[in-house]
């Protein structure tokens, strides 16, 4: 087991994005009741109906119980110990351009490698950067406006496009959907809003970078993407967080609406602080992501999950329209004491709907990595088709890899195929690589990258490079 020894020796990599930027913040006192929600709503200048909507969700949330079915273990969250609003102070005088933005903030993004300045133009990315809870700066708005695309903070959309928000907010993930989404409905402070008009191909890839900064601040983003008939959009989401001792809760909700013939591609690279090697600190990532596909529409979720102490996340597709398509490609890497319970739900309602699920789970250290998915073929889903492939790779003998697929079929003409395998990085593979002069770290990284290739090829180019780099960095810590 010499390889194993070398692997273990290299344990203990520092978290690269682990720094705390020093920006004065205006933060609510910890605690949650109706007055806090009213305050959030007031701060955002929200219309009355929005406040009512939030309060309704809060009342539902009070009646709900925290879910306990996932294979994750964490101390009970004290929701009264969390502050539900935090905004960088410099927001008060609303920066109109990049020059007006707090240089400290810009430096923070630079450290994370977010191209917020000119490089962006070259990269062709419009960034709606969320620093804690408020969108700080949005670039490329005008270029998008030319195409008729709306890409703005959701708080702004509530005020400026109330009819769109009213129609679609909560239409895919209802207020009563689950414990964390109900909480999000009540207290979300910001997030992104995207509307792609009929027949429009969004001229650039849209991207949001999330940061969690204030201590004890929960992040409750809300993302709403509407792709009108025949439109196309690719959305990128990436996250990092500074090193903290306190556990931080993150309960985002993402809703996607793909109307007839529309296509939404949603890609995520998630690298929040996973906690130290003893499992102290780290982000709790309890996210609800769901999209609805109308006739001939397509939603594709691609995710690379390497961060967070606890992940509870199931990006899903409701394939309502005939001939609609849902896809889920995922790489989830856990190490140290990370726990991930992630997967997808494909609900086939329409005729000839198709879904593909490809997941790659990599467990190292003392982590646990579970795939949990549902494929449901309703009685109406004539000729529907699903293909699922879940592969797990174990690195070390103290981690766990689990698969919990639920298959429910009520239609004989629907075809469901599921397969799952579990294996480890074999000594033979390692030997071959090392024979050719690769050090163990590089060898494992290469093998793992090959294992994940099917998913990486689904990522937009910039993300694919970043994802493969991220995997390499993450493995440095746990594989060695």
């Amino acid at each position, binding site marked *: 087991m010499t390889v194993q020894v070398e692997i273990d020796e290299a344990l203990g990599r520092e978290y690269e994005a682990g720094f705390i930027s020093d920006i004065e913040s205006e933060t609510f006192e910890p605690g949650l009741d109706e007055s806090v929600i009213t305050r959030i709503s007031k701060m955002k200048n929200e219309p009355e109906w929005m406040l009512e909507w939030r309060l309704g969700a809060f009342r539902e949330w009070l009646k709900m119980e925290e879910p306990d079915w996932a294979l994750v273990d964490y101390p009970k969250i004290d929701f009264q110990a969390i502050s539900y609003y935090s905004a960088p102070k410099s927001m008060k005088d609303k920066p109109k351009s990049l020059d007006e933005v707090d240089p400290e903030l810009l430096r923070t993004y630079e450290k994370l490698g977010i191209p917020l300045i000119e490089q962006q133009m070259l990269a062709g990315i419009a960034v709606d950067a969320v620093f804690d809870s408020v969108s700080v700066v949005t670039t490329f708005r005008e270029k998008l406006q030319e195409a008729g695309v709306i890409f703005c903070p959701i708080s702004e959309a509530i005020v400026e496009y109330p009819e769109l928000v009213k129609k679609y907010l909560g239409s895919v993930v209802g207020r009563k959907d689950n414990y964390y989404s109900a909480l999000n409905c009540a207290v979300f402070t910001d997030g992104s809003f995207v509307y792609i008009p009929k027949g429009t191909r969004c001229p650039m890839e849209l991207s949001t970078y999330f940061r969690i900064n204030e201590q004890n601040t929960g992040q409750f983003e809300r993302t709403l993407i509407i792709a009108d008939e025949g439109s196309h959009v690719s959305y990128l989401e990436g996250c990092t967080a500074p090193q903290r001792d306190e556990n931080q809760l993150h309960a985002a909700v993402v809703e996607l609406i793909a109307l007839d013939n529309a296509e939404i591609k949603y890609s995520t690279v998630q690298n929040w602080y996973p906690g130290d090697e003893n499992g102290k600190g780290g982000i709790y990532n309890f996210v609800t992501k769901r999209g609805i596909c109308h006739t001939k529409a397509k939603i594709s979720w691609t995710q690379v999950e390497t961060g967070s102490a606890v992940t509870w996340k199931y990006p899903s597709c409701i394939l309502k329209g005939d001939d609609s398509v849902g896809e889920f490609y995922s790489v989830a890497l856990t190490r140290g004491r990370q726990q991930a319970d992630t997967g997808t739900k494909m609900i086939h309602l329409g005729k000839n709907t198709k879904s593909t699920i490809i997941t790659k789970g990599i467990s190292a250290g003392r982590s646990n990595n579970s795939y949990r998915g549902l494929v449901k073929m309703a009685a109406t889903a004539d000729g529907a088709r699903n293909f699922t492939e879940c592969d797990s790779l174990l690195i070390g003998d103290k981690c766990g890899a689990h698969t919990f697929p639920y298959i429910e079929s*009520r239609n004989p003409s629907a075809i469901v195929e599921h397969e799952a395998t579990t294996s480890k990085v074999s000594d033979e593979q390692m030997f071959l690589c090392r024979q050719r002069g690769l050090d163990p770290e590089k060898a494992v990284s290469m093998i793992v990258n090959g294992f994940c290739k099917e998913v990486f090829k689904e990522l937009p180019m910039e993300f694919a490079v970043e994802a493969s780099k991220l995997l390499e960095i993450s493995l440095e810590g746990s594989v060695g």
Partner: protein
Amino acid sequence: MSEWLENAISRGQKIDDWLNPKRSRALELLSTTKWPTRKTEAWRYTPLRAIQSTKATQLEVVSELTPLAIADLSAIELVFKNGKLDKSALSDTLPTGLTVSLGSELAAQQQLQAIADFSEVKPDRHLFGLVNDALAQDVVIVNVEAGVKVEQPLRISSLLSQGAESHTRVQVSLGEGAELAVIEDVQAEGETLNTAFVEYFVSPKAHLEHYRFALQTGTNVSVGGCHFNMLDHSTMHSTIVAFGSDLSRLDTDIIHSGEFVDAKLNAIYLLDNNELFDLHATVEHAMPNGTTEENVRCIVGGRAKAVFNGRIHIHRDAQKTLAELNNRNLLVSKTAEINTKPELEIYADDVRCAHGATSAEVDKQALYYLQTRGINRAQANVILNFGFINELIDLMPNKVLAEWIRPIIRARFSAMKVN
């Protein structure tokens, strides 16, 4: 808590016999167990309405019931009638090395052992297993001495007359290197309820051949379990055939407690009308070098509902495990339903595990092919669907049983309405 369970607990409290230590333990666990709802993972797809509304009760009168004849099968018959052991059915001369006794009639020393073994293999999570612990009528202890190969299969039949409720329990131990085949079956008339649990203790190098036939349909409620504790180098081969009923649920637990254990489990479901069959098959690989192979095939028609949960759990120490599960389902009507969940929970790295699950109807092209050969559609459907499960019948080690069940399955399938 449900009225039915409260009633069961109060009946259990009145029983006073040799099993008291285990019965009171079960009652204590039951008193804190919640009645399963749709939100209870283990009963997610299987509603318990049929139990709550059953009128079946424990009957004192044992009616005239005889086990279904199996042609050419010469078995050692162990017959329960409405839960009571029918001693007259048991042969006076058992093969050497095989003993069959009522737990209540064992000598003091052996009885202590029986109490110690009772409910040791069956996990406490089975709600109706606990009910069976508390209410089991005649507990039968079967023992095969080390090195003894019993030629004749042992057949455990549980017969129920209209309106009867029964709780049967058998504990089977195989000594080192012993060999035994066990056939479990239930026959019920009309509205009945039975819990039937068997625990197997398989010593090193012993071999167990196992069959469970759940062919009773209609208003019968059957909840049972087969639990296998496997020691070093022991092997087992189990075949389950089920037709479903108002509520039919079986839990199997195969526990690899020793190294180099080889376990095979094949299950066939053939469900029609409003029938439901739910199989929860759990394999615990607690020790290294074990192999498990599971094949579960379902054909579901009518408004029937098939539920399968196949859990393979590889513990931290179970290195070099090889485990495979294959679940294939055919839906033959637009109102049938299949719910399957093959689970893998793996904590050891040097293992090879895989599972697969499919759900579909018979391949249209295969049907077309047969039709072009002059076989009409209905016949072609029978050929293809029957072929799907025939493979598993072929794998049954006991050919007499295979030839007995084959026409029964064929007849059942022919009566099913296929789209």
